[in-house]
């Protein structure tokens, strides 16, 4: 069984982003980039399925700038066997990415696509669901446990009220949540080995996909700033403030 793992290059989760002065977007100049943390969990899960003898091959995919090759090398250092970059300078929105992935699924014929539930830059939480819909496949989003056996995936999902377990007929799409696993650190030998693994390049044109954005960003601004309030000396003063100043308790 082949697993396809789409990964996104995003601003590192530790970076405090800044809005551009002209409100046109986020200032990405000289900002540290990394693999979307949820996608890293997806790569780890796919590699574990391969190590368990359930998957035969793990193919990492990224869509975007040439620099996404670094992200794909990271995926291969974790254990993906090979990688595909769909290279474009165009702004890619989730629907466009889902269509690119759909075209790749048709080419690669995986039984399972595992990807992060959301990217920490646009926080859209759409791509996996859209891909599943375009393919007519079942989906299990927000996964905290994945078991694959006999043509089925049994997936425990983190939902608003607690946990829910679904049984899906393969092929299927799974999106990962935080507690699915803890991704390993890539070791130096594996980082070196990843440099020699195959990385193919395609373009949206090669895949016959129109990636034109549907949404236009009119402006990006900072949210209203919350300022630090007062320190209180003790519990008595805290209660007094909550009761008589903020009036949030009786």
């Amino acid at each position, binding site marked *: 069984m082949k697993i396809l793992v789409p990964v996104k290059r995003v601003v590192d989760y530790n970076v405090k982003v800044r809005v551009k002065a002209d409100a046109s977007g986020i200032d990405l100049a000289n900002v540290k980039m990394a693999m979307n943390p949820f996608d890293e969990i997806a790569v780890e899960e796919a590699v574990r399925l391969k190590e368990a003898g359930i998957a035969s091959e793990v193919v990492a995919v990224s869509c975007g700038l040439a620099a996404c090759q670094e992200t794909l090398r990271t995926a291969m250092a974790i254990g993906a066997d090979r990688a595909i970059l769909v290279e474009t300078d165009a702004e890619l929105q989730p629907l466009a990415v889902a269509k690119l992935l759909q075209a790749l699924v048709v080419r690669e014929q995986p039984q399972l696509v595992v990807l992060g539930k959301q990217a920490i830059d646009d926080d859209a*939480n759409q791509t996996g669901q859209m891909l599943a819909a375009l393919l007519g496949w079942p989906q299990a989003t927000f996964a905290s446990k994945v078991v694959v056996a006999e043509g089925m995936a049994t997936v425990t999902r*983190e939902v608003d009220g607690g946990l829910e377990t679904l049984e899906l007929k393969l092929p299927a799409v799974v999106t990962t949540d935080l507690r699915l696993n803890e991704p390993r650190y890539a070791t130096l030998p594996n980082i070196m080995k990843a440099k020699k693994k195959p990385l193919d390049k395609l373009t949206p044109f090669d895949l016959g996909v129109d990636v034109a954005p549907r949404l236009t960003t009119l402006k990006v601004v900072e949210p209203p700033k919350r300022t630090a309030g007062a320190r209180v000396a003790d519990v008595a003063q805290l209660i007094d403030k909550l009761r008589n100043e903020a009036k949030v*308790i009786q």
Partner: protein
Amino acid sequence: MSILVIAEHDNAGLKAATLNTVTAAAQIGAQLGAEIHVLVAGSACAAVAAAAAQIEGVARVRVADAAHYADQTAENVAALILANAAGYSHILAPATSHGKNTLPRVAALLDVAQISDVVGIEAPDTFVRPIYAGNALATVQSADAVKVVTVRTTAFAAAAINVGGSAAVENLTAAADLGVARLVGRELTQSARPELGAAKVVVSGGRGLGSGANYHALLEPLADKLNAALGASRAAVDAGFVPNDYQVGQTGKIVAPQLYIAVGISGAIQHLAGMKDSRVIVAINKDADAPIFQVADYGLVADLFQAVPELTAAL
């Protein structure tokens, strides 16, 4: 053209998130002169339909009652919405785990973008949404014929319930059961407390509590006194103090109560993303440099093991 709101429910009752979503729909509807319809997909869900018919501003409730909607799997519900999408300029759902699961499928099948987690409506085609864990607000304009939108419920007031008022209730033909996904089981947290996403007071705990036993021993009595919901930081959930549905933050629940009490939470940006729109924030932490104090209205630098019982006793 009308506006369709997808009801959030558990077959027995309508969830409050639906009311916030209707308010967002009403803001769009007022600009377009459009009617609001509510779609209920469920099984033995007549009570939900009756409740939806009493929401102020709702003109019509459309109900698909069939066994294969009992668990509201994304595949079947999306197919139903798609089959009934004609005549709608906007399709809205709350940005709950159910809405986030289902609506992107609808958008993809309609070949339109989805606008996620909307916090403001500037025009029927122009929406404000947080990006980068709420560290920026983007205003986006959709060029698509149908706008598929998930709504951040804390950004919109709940629509009123009009007891006695009743929108027309219409039964829909169920779409075919796709049979590709099956619910095996649910482990839902049982609690008599208010729902985390809608509570007026939230008491939230972090790694500083040290253990699940401490979390429960210290925070439950405080939450009882304040009739509060209980929340947690990612660190507390990862450490197994409490179940996943307690998590407040960028990828957990977004809350905006009147009062948020953060106990032993350092305040990572991912956590702040989930609670910084609370009206009043209280932080109790022994580390005076913890980032949580930068957003707290009232900060108490203290040992939580003394301060919390003292606070509980004094309320």
